[in-house]
């Protein structure tokens, strides 16, 4: 039952998405790939689209995945599922447990969760960079263009931060990478 899968999948994401949108991406990737809803490439495309459209990235991704799997109601269920946990938790904290976040046991658990999220996000970023940039060179086509694109874009992105002090915004990097993609693979 796709509606139930979407509900449970995105409730899980909503419950464990610590550290904002980027903390949620590995979780969404887990759910989407394990159910086989989208390919890794299409999911990556959608992360870029969610980054370039207004609104919280997590909500954008949930709406898209839900809609692609089960139309309007799929989108509705996935979107509500991803925001419900944080809605309820904030209500609970505001009404009842104003000090729960400062509780030392809660703090101890969070003290383990947060670095774990960072490790997971870092690994996901590296895996995605490798899959898109390095892997094509090692497989059948031995295509060198992805590797050059990766090196070039990383240089532009991190170099601009050194030179301009204030780095490029994600949307600008996405626009540059789109132009680079067109230049490398043609119209």
């Amino acid at each position, binding site marked *: 039952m796709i509606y139930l899968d979407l509900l449970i999948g995105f409730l899980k994401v909503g*419950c464990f998405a610590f550290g*904002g*949108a980027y903390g949620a*991406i*590995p979780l969404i990737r887990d759910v989407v790939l*394990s159910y086989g809803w989208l390919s890794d490439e299409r999911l*990556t495309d959608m992360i*870029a*689209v969610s*980054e370039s*459209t*207004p*609104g*919280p*990235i*997590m909500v954008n991704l949930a*709406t*898209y995945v839900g*809609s692609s799997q089960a139309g309007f109601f799929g*989108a509705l269920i996935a*979107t509500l599922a991803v*925001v419900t946990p*944080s*809605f309820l*938790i*904030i209500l609970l*904290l505001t009404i009842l447990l104003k000090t729960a*976040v400062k509780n030392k*046991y809660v703090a*101890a*658990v969070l003290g*383990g*969760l*947060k*670095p774990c999220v*960072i490790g997971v*996000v*870092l*690994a996901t*970023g*590296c*895996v*995605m*960079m490798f*899959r*898109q940039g390095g892997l094509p060179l090692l497989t059948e086509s031995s295509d060198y263009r992805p590797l050059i*694109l*990766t090196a070039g*874009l990383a240089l532009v*992105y991190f170099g601009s931060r050194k030179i301009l002090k204030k780095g490029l*915004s994600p*949307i600008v*990097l996405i626009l540059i*990478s*789109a132009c*680079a*993609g*067109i230049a490398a*693979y043609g*119209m």
Partner: protein
Amino acid sequence: MKILLDLFLTFAKIGLFTFGGGYAMISLIENACVERRRWISHEDMMNITVIAESTPGPIAINCATFVGYRQKGLPGALAATFGLILPSFVILYAVSVFLDSFLEIAWITSAFRGIRIAVGILIADAAVNMIRKMKKKPLPCVILLCSFAAMLCVNAFSLRFSSISLMLLAGAVSLTVFLIKNASSGKGGEKP
């Protein structure tokens, strides 16, 4: 009723005009709810930002729920939260309807081959920023390295081990270490 509509519209506007999510939204929410409408105090805003960092879910949703509840209880919280997600929902639903045919256009396919690479860079960069902000104590650093290695293995060998299990494990380890430390400092008697 007027305040509910006002909450809904204010957050819908924020949802419609912030790109990149998360922290970009905080400053807009602060501007709208603290400076212009005086719905909450600056101190409240600081508190909710800290709480949002320790609770799951989109940070902007956390803020919207909090501001809405402060103004008008549960209906207020619902109005603000729905306001915030409505633009996302409408836009992404529209995108999803025609994206497939859009992606078949040759030059757009090429563009997305470049874009996919940028996404990996952005995610790795987000992690590096989080590391910079983190307090560098031994236990968190060990947990970070272990989860990084574990997640790489999971991906390399396509293991069926979700990142949620990894997070629960890390939380349990951290709690256990805390309890052991607590117990041993308890036995060691009072320190001056």
